[in-house]
Structure formats: C-alpha cells, structure tokens
C-alpha cells in the first residue's frame, strides 16, 4: 500500500516535471521563432499558459504537502500538541467542506465553458480548465483523509516527526 502510493507520487512528480519542461521548451521555441527566424508563432504562448495552469493545479493537488505551504505558524507552534491536533482537524474539515461545496457550481461553469475555444489552437476551454475540477476534488478528499488520520490513533506520528524540522530556538 505504502510503496504503491510512493510510486504513484513518483509518477505524479514525473508528469509535473514533464509539464514544466514543455512550458519551458515552448518559451524557447517562441523566442527562437521571433528573434532568429523572424516569424513569431502564436501557439507557443497558449501552450505555455496551458502548461502553467496544469502544472500549478496538478502539483498542488498531488505533490504539495501541508508543510510545503506558506503557513502563519507563529501562534500555533506555541500551543500544546493536543490543541494543535484538534485545530488541524478543524482546518482540514473546513477545507474539505468548502471545496466540496464549491465543486458542483465549478463543474457547471467549466461545462458551460465548452462553448469557448482558445484563440489559436482552438482547444475547448472546458478541457483546458478541467484540471481545476480535479484539483478541487483531490483537495477535498485529501483534507478528509487528513482529518481522519488526525482523529485516528496514529495521529502523533505527524506532529512528532515534524518537530525537528522546525527552527530550533
């Protein structure tokens, strides 16, 4: 179970790297075509923007952990561990609830965007934006799992493993 999750994360990381590399390459092609060939291409700009949006929401959904995020942790680190645990549960449940609530309208709006197409490549916007649906759903599910984990008996592991990573005073 653990190893298959690790493997899936590896695949997710490779895909993120690939998306990033394609974005980078499209930029280079754009510069080359404009300044060397003197024949600017329009599709590269679209490819970079699409890759950017996909890389950001893909990475945020699958690769970013709670500790990677920018958090205002000055107050919370002063609180005793049991209090931190229950506050973390509250945060996780609120995130899950908010994203789950927003999901149906998001789905509707993105389905509605099928009538719009990207100006150069003619790609349908509902496809381009579909990554956001995945992002919302994964965030909600991961937050629920986190809450479940924090409520379960194994919750200590996370807090005590985290301890040494904090700046020592």
């Amino acid at each position, binding site marked *: 179970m653990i190893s298959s999750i690790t493997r899936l994360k590896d695949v997710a*990381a*490779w895909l*993120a*790297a690939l*998306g*990033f*590399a394609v*974005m*980078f390459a499209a*930029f*280079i092609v*754009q*510069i080359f075509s404009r*300044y060397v060939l003197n024949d600017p291409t329009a599709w590269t*700009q679209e490819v*970079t*923007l699409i890759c*950017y*949006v996909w*890389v*950001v*929401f893909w*990475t*945020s959904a699958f*690769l*970013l952990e*709670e500790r*990677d*995020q*920018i*958090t*205002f*942790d*000055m*107050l*919370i680190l002063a609180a005793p561990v049991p209090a*931190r645990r229950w*506050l*973390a549960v*509250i*945060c996780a449940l*609120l*995130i899950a609830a*908010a*994203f789950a*609530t*927003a999901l*149906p*309208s*998001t789905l*509707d*709006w*993105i389905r509605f965007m099928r009538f719009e197409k990207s100006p150069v490549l003619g790609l349908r916007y509902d496809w381009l*934006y579909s990554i*956001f649906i995945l992002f*919302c759903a994964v965030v909600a599910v991961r937050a629920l799992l986190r809450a479940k984990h924090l409520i379960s008996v194994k919750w200590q592991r996370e807090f005590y493993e985290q301890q040494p*990573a904090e*700046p*020592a*005073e």
Partner: protein
Amino acid sequence: MTLPFILVLAGFFGLSAIGMPIAYAMFVSSIGYLLFMHADLALFAEQILNNFIDSFVLLSVPLFILAANLMNAGGVSERLLRFCQALVGRFRGGLAHVNVIANIIFAGMSGSAIADAAGVGKLLAEMMVKTGRYSPGFASAVSASAATIGPIIPPSIPMVLYALVSDTSVGYLFLGGVIPGLLMGVALMAAIAWIARRRDFPRDEGVALAQLPRATLQALPPLMLPVILLGGIYGGAATPTEAASLAALYALALAALLYRSLSFREIVRMFVDSARATSVVALLIAGAFVLNYIVATERVPELVATWLDGSQMSPMLFLLLVNLLFLALGCLFDATTMLLVLVPLFIPTCRALGIDLVHFGVVIVVNIMIGLITPPYGVLLFVMSGLMKTPLGAIIREVWTFIAILLVALLIMILVPETVLWLPRQFGYEG
C-alpha cells in the same frame, strides 16, 4: 463594507492564525463569503482560472525560480566566489563583504530572496564560520540581510507580483530597483565595516589583486547572465518573461554542458522542485485573485482612498505612514500575502495623491524585503537558522544593526524619489 465582508476578513485572519495554510484560508473564507451573499459559487473558479489565463507576466515566476535553482545546484556560486574575494576579500571582515558582493551579483540572476539565502548565502555563511573568526549567528545574519537585495536588483519575483496588482510596467519596475539595490549593498557593507572595526575583526586572506583579471575571466560565464537578462529587456529584444526563460536556458547550459555538474536525473529533480515552488506561490496568487475580487466588489480601496483624501494628508506623509504600517505588518506576515492582498488596497490612494506607482512599488518591495529579516516572523531568519543549524536567537541578536541600516536606506528611497526614478527615466519612463 458589509457584514459578510467583515466576516471574510475575520475568517481569513482567524483560519491563518489556527494554522491553516494562508492560500487555503483565502479560499475557504472567500467561498464562505460567496455563500453568505448568495452569490454564484462559480465565481470562485471563474476568478481564478480567467485571471490566470490573462496574466501572461506570471509565467516569468516559474522561470526565474528554475533559473535560480539551476544556478544554485550547478556550482555557479562557487565560481563567482574567487572573483568576489579578489574584489573585497582583503578588507577587515573581508568574507562578510564578499557575502554582500556575491549577493548583489546573484541578485542580478535570481529574483527570490529565499533562493539567494539558501544558495549563495548558505555557502558564504559556512565559509565565514569555517575560518573561526565569525560566529554562526553573525555569519547567518549577514547572509539573511544580504539576501534581501535579491528581489530589489532585477530580476525580481515580488516586483512581477506588484506589476500584476498595480498594472505597472515590469520593465520600469526592474530598472527602478537597480540603484536602491546597490544602495542597500553599500549600506550593509558600511555596517559591516563599522562592526569589523568595533570588534577588531582580523583581516581575511583575500585573493591578491593581481589575480583579479584571472578570477574575472573564470567568473565571466555566470557574470554574463545579468547582462543577457537586462540587455535583453532594455535593448527591447525580449519581454521580461522571455528574458526569464533565456536566463533559465543559459543557467541550464552552464550547469549541464559547460560545468557538467548536473546529471539528467538531477535536472528532472530541478524541474519537480521548481514546479512545487511555483505552485506554492501560484496558490497564494489564486487565493488573492478571489479575495481581491471580493475586496473590489466591496469597494474597499475606494473607501480607503476617500477616507485618506478627506484627511488632507500630504503624499509624503502618506508614504511614510504606509511604510510604517507595512514594516509593522512585515514582522507578522508573509511577503507574498502582503504584496497580493494588502498592497492593492493602497493603489487608488497613490493615484489620487499623485504618488508615482513605480516609486511606490520599489519602496514597498524594499520594505517587504526588510520584513523578511524582522523578528519574530522573518522567513530569511528561519531559512538561515535551519540551514546553519544555529539558534534563531543568536541570529536575531546580530541582525538588528543590519535592519537599522537598511531602514536608513529605505528612508532615503522614500524621501528622494529620484533614487528609484532616475534610471527608469533615462530609459523613457514618463513618471
């Protein structure tokens, strides 16, 4: 301002305070607001996605991150070191001066203070400690303070974000940062010279001046990068975003081909790391897109402008007060959040009072960067403490002198707008 808006603010601050990541605190409180107002929840996705697709300038952020990562991993900093040592290594407290100079040069390649601290800052701090002449606290404080120059001298990720929220030209903002960045460097070196004399630091063994041409030659490939970047932008050849990708390509070529210091596997890891760092910033931007939509709907910036206009404040007094406010908030808040959420509140007032937006932008970014080294919440202090395994308290004791001298530099930039605006005007800025 309506009650639901006050609830959004309370929700945002409350959730951040109990440890929810700031980006998610923005998402959750914004969704709460839309629910309260019985507004269409689709606005959430719409504001985020449509703004992302429209903000081409944001694409420079991942590329600047990639370039900095490649520079740090590719051994570029080591090669710059001899050059800096030949330049200022012979003085009293030589390595501390080398640290500042190396950061100034690195600032011309990287747009992120944290990347500079983790790269060239860590390297120099370790060298300083190894000589046995500098305490780890002092070495870390120098590295943290010098890293604040990174986003002032172009390229600069914070200035790209400011350009996004204020609708100002990235090119002129970048130019506006050059002299202030050098001013900060001079200020820090003056403080180091003063400390070195007072504590009677011995002279470090520098690299002989006769070696300077040779050291310069060796450092030339990385030194060319700022030239390519700025030459590209101001020669009119490339947009800042294109210049960012050229910089990343150049860094990749240096590391992978010239120095052969990166394997394919490591390059893949660089891309993954860059994707992660990009996403952390992008999620904050996404949160700010929704939150700022709500702030705009509630007409908050106009309220601020009307209120300040009614108080008959002079532009200079306004600038000073805003700077004091940001310094205070900088002790508590993260730089990106302040730039994306708080700065837009004051843009209409600046326009009404006739304050130049390039001047305001550079000054505010300098201010926010100083916030990165002000305790208790100073990200650069945390980074150096973690990297150098040095207690935060030891760094904080040493950093006060540097904070004080940087504040003097900031005051000069506020009182004399020409420090910021002179260079952009030479390139046709009509402000």
